[in-house]
């Protein structure tokens, strides 16, 4: 802990860590000093001049360095001018006065100056009701404007900075919070000021505009209504909104969110989600959210939602009662007991997955995780220790990211890893391509696809990199599925686990392995016993399949074929999908917004989410549907409530033993203090009152034996002349249903493309933009070629989720006739 110093603010004794700003120290002591430009997550700039206060310093004797005393008290010398609380640091004996006539007059002056250029259009402003300027105007503003309203500048009010964020130039108060957030926190300086003086204006000239996946955060920290999201602007007035705690379902980071909801006539008087806001969890997402997490909740709405169970009769799906539908499915599964398979994805909660797994186990079926990525057993052994907080990593620590493009796969991890590097952590990025993280890395290792394991083994040899990694105080490895399928990732996880164990980086906080999973709760699925299989097509062929939260038919023609030949298919889903279309039974499930449950994040933090809106139609939570179906099969499972299921789960799965919903609801004090009453300080981020979750102990920390399975050697794929190596890579905005349904993201999704190095394209005689046919492993697709210098030669890089079914590296052929 850093040294504490004592000072007084408005006569109150305050203790604060050395180096803290006076504004922050006041906040800590419960004294509000108004601020606009200052934000506790940004470097102080002292530019808005809102936080003017009187500061007195104890006089020191020049010779002795001791305080000069007067009547037994240190003599305090005040500066003639007001000073900014946001740029002055606390010192021993400092005396701060924030409410004297002089200070208040200074603050009033700043508000008045700001209002001379402000449109005062609060009644139609999205920020009205949660606007710091509005609040401070009430508190400090003059009753009547001394500024001649006719001389007010009139500026553009609806400028799209990109497709996602709008700027109102009249409302902007030039505090630069948004610019500084993008530069300092996100490391993407895509916002800037144009011109100067009174003409200073925010601009973004990137292509596309405001090219950052963190853009939504600027609307939270903008202290006025200058920045608004395309999604929410004119959506509702903040005071009409209710709030419910949730967890983002988009990636394994597990960002804490708040769903803002409102009853709406437009929605037939139903309560609907109006926006997703960040909820503070300094150990997970701090006060940030990526745009994918913020904007992709629309898939829980719409006509495509399933509302009634359906059963196929005479080749057609027809409505049925819950009883009839589950009974029908149960009979089929019982009839094909030997061939019973449960296929579920990490979109489901622990409670859902636990019931599914219990059913499979009791009924003698197989439980398969719908994923291209393995290795979750290893994160159970040497995953990051409880107490991990990437926000505390820095100088002396090391972070290795291998086979993952964090920016595209888990943006908030990207941001936090980048910031750890900013604080001095050694960042090593190992990837066959250049990724956005490389800019912040101390070392990059550009290996060839297929050399992942070798790259990790090389850490066993002497080199500057391996030395620095081994000697690091703390070390974390992120591994992902770039260019790898189930086998490759499992082997990579083993190799990483061995490295961590041997270098002593397992079993402690801020040490261990993190899987960059494709879905939010893949880690939970592993904990519960689900495993992916290397050949899903084979595993499904001729089986009786119970699918939950997955669309294999839509994703992959080979899987579609396998399911066509299946004995029976029951699908439990939110929305109509290609898989529900071929199913024999369709069971409508509730969305995460409609029910409660828990997820396990990639850092193995178990976190709760809550029901915010009413369920659609007759849909039920997945765990309850499974319990109904199980009952019909003669298996007794709990399905009454998520809590009950969780209690059983925590009794049966060892790692969860100590957990309960109550434990997950605990909150700790967090810094910075954010909340609804002082929006000028932290922004509109929600305070966390519903729980920060609990991290599971990895075996290495729990004291169990850690035995790491041997890495299976797979022969590297070697394309022959006229062949190339097709590899999968992940993409943030893909054609997945969760992204696609938020129409305004279309531009960011882009189209299906085959990326290759110019030399490869030349060898195959294709140019940039030319449509080609690519075929491998029974898959054949057409897509335009995009030249990309960062892709290794001889390789075709294909993004997952963009329409070409690629799970793992394969030898591919290019050519053949292309329909134009």
């Amino acid at each position: 802990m850093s040294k504490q110093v004592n000072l007084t603010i408005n006569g109150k004794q305050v203790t604060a860590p050395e180096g803290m700003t006076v504004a922050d120290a006041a906040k800590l002591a419960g004294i509000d000093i108004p601020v606009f430009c200052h934000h506790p997550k940004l470097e102080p700039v002292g530019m808005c001049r809102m936080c003017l206060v009187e500061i007195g310093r104890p006089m020191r004797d020049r010779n002795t360095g001791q305080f000069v005393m007067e009547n037994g008290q240190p003599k305090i010398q005040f500066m003639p001018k007001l000073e900014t609380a946001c740029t002055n640091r606390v010192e021993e004996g400092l005396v701060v006065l924030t409410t004297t006539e002089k200070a208040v007059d200074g603050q009033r002056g700043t508000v008045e100056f700001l209002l001379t250029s402000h449109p005062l259009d609060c009644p139609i402003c999205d920020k009205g009701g949660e606007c710091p300027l509005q609040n401070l105007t009430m508190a400090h503003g003059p009753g009547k404007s001394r500024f001649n309203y006719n001389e007010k500048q009139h500026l553009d009010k609806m400028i799209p900075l990109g497709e996602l964020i709008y700027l109102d130039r009249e409302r902007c108060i030039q505090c630069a919070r948004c610019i500084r957030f993008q530069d300092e926190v996100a490391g993407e300086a895509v916002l800037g000021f144009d011109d100067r003086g009174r003409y200073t204006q925010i601009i973004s000239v990137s292509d596309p505009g405001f090219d950052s996946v963190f853009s939504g955060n600027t609307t939270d920290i903008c202290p006025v209504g200058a920045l608004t999201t395309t999604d929410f602007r004119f959506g509702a007035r903040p005071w009409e909104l209710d709030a419910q705690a949730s967890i983002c379902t988009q990636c394994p980071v597990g960002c804490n969110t708040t769903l803002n909801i409102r009853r709406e006539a437009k929605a037939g008087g139903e309560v609907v989600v109006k926006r997703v806001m960040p909820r503070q969890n300094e150990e997970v997402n701090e006060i940030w959210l990526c745009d994918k997490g913020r904007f992709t909740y629309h898939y829980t709405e719409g006509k495509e939602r399933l509302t009634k169970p359906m059963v196929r009769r005479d080749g057609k799906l027809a409505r049925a009662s819950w009883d009839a539908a589950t009974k029908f499915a149960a009979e089929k599964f019982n009839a094909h007991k030997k061939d019973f398979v449960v296929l579920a994805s990490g979109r489901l909660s622990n409670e859902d997955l636990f019931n599914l797994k219990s059913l499979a186990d009791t009924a003698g079926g197989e439980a398969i995780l719908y994923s291209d990525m393995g290795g979750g057993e290893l994160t159970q052994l040497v995953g990051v220790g409880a107490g991990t907080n990437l926000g505390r990593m820095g100088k002396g620590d090391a972070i290795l990211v291998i086979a993952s493009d964090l920016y595209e796969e888990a943006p908030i991890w990207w941001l936090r890893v980048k910031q750890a590097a900013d604080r001095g952590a050694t960042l090593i990025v190992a990837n066959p391509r250049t990724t956005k993280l490389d800019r912040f890395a101390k070392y990059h290792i550009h290996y060839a696809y297929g050399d992942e394991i070798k790259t990790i083994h090389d850490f066993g040899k002497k080199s500057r990199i391996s030395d620095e990694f081994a000697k690091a105080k703390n070390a974390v490895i992120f591994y992902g599925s770039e260019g790898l399928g189930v086998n490759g990732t499992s082997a990579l996880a083993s190799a990483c686990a061995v490295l961590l164990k041997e270098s002593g980086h397992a079993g402690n906080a801020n040490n261990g392995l993190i899987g960059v999973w494709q879905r939010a709760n893949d880690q939970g699925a592993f904990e519960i016993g689900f495993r992916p299989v290397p050949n899903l097509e084979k595993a499904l062929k001729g089986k009786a399949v119970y699918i939950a939260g997955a669309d294999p038919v839509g994703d992959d023609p080979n899987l579609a074929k396998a399911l066509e030949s299946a004995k029976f298919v029951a699908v439990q889903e939110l929305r109509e999908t290609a898989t529900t279309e071929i199913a024999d039974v369709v069971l409508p499930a509730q969305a995460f917004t409609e029910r409660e449950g828990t997820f396990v994040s990639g850092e193995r933090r178990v976190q709760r989410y809550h029901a915010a809106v009413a369920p659609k139609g007759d849909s039920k939570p997945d765990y309850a549907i499974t319990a109904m179906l199980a009952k019909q099969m003669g298996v007794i499972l709990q399905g009454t409530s998520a809590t009950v299921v969780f209690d059983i789960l925590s009794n049966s799965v060892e790692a969860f033993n100590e957990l309960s919903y109550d434990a997950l609801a605990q909150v700790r004090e967090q810094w910075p203090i954010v909340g609804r009453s002082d929006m000028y300080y932290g922004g509109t981020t929600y305070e966390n009152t519903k729980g920060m979750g609990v991290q599971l102990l990895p075996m290495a920390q729990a004291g169990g034996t850690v035995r790491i399975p041997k890495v299976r050697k797979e022969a590297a794929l070697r394309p022959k002349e006229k062949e190339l190596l097709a590899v999968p890579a992940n993409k943030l905005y893909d054609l997945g249903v969760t992204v696609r349904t938020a129409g305004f993201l279309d531009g960011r999704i882009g189209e299906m493309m085959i990326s290759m190095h110019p030399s490869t394209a030349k060898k195959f005689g294709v140019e940039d933009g030319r449509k080609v046919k690519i075929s491998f492993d029974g898959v054949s697709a057409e897509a335009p070629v995009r030249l990309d210098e960062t892709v290794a030669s001889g390789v075709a890089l294909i993004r997952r989720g963009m329409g070409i079914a690629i799970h793992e590296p394969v030898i591919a052929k290019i050519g053949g006739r292309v329909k134009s």
Partner: protein
Amino acid sequence: MTHILLRHRDVPDINKLSVYKKNGGFDAFKKAVTRMKPNEVTDVVKASGLKGRGGAGFPTGMKWAFIDKNNWPHYVVANADESEPGTFKDREIMESNPFQFLEGLAIACYAVGATVAYVYLRGEFWELAAFLDQKIAEMEEAGYLGDNLFGKDYSLRIFTHLGAGAYICGEETALLESLEGKRGQPRVRPPFPPSFGLYGKPTIINNVETFTNVPPIIANGADWYKNIGTADSAGVKVFSLSGRVRKPGNYELPFGSTFRNLIYEHGMGIQEGRPIKAIMPAGASSSLIVVDEKVLDTPMDYATVRTLGADLGSASVIVLDDTVDIDWVINKTIHFFKHESCGKCTPCREGNHWMRNLTERIHQGTGSGEDVSLLLNVAKQMQGKCLCALGEFATMAVVTGIERFPEDFKKAVKA
């Protein structure tokens, strides 16, 4: 009198290397590098009483001594931004006596252990920058810049850097931001450049004229210099005289010379022999001094000018005669400050915008008495609140104009 700074007025062609050398050029630099320790150089400058000529008048030697010796490398930057309306002295020095300036800069570098220096010129000094580049190249060729100077283990390089039209870049931290390739907006101080300057490294910034004083100080000693000028302000100053005088221009005078001497002896008095109404001793940033005989006889040094309710600043003396209306003057100065406000801090950005609306209205004759008091009030509301001194500067002429020349404003709003 022979000139110490504007030596070209005594020695023709001193901007040629050979002529400069023949007249003792680079002896001081050689003396410093070969016979003095760096801190001895700083001590001599400290003892000479030299104060910064960029406006603030901060003791130069003291600034050099502040350089943080625990953080390296160190930089020295010459402030050649010269953008204060009424100031044109640095330009003449660099054009006509460039080597003395560069030598002074080099000595400063030696004193603080810098091996790289930048000369930050306002963008308009485009031709001058090319000229200095050529002079720097000549120095390199002659062995006054480069590696192992005078056979000692000391190397130095000097580079020019052009601004691009922004008065604020004369403010030292805005200048550094600009030199770092950013928008020229001031930083919060402290930390000050001697501990956190260019690229976050300890940096000494001085005005061109300040550096130009250094070679003769090193050559002739601190006492020689201290004996020139007044007790408060040692040495000589180049006064940029402009406005309604017959003969505007730069005049190098010892501190303590009177306004009368400057304006009537050197500037040949006022056009058409009219009376002087006001003096702005520090350019557009200046307070307006109401002129009477006593004022004209006031010796010009930093302390004494302060007794007149103004700062000497960079000594750019703008003379206003009785034909000039003060409401017009402040409309001009506020036009300037509104144009040059960087926009970073609220009071300066908004205050200048507001003030300009008011001065324009008042000057156009559509303003009211209330507008005048509002203007005064807005100016005072800015004072002491801004991030850098520009905002403060903007209020000077307004406040002193309204308070010291109330008649002009009564006349302007009489409608």
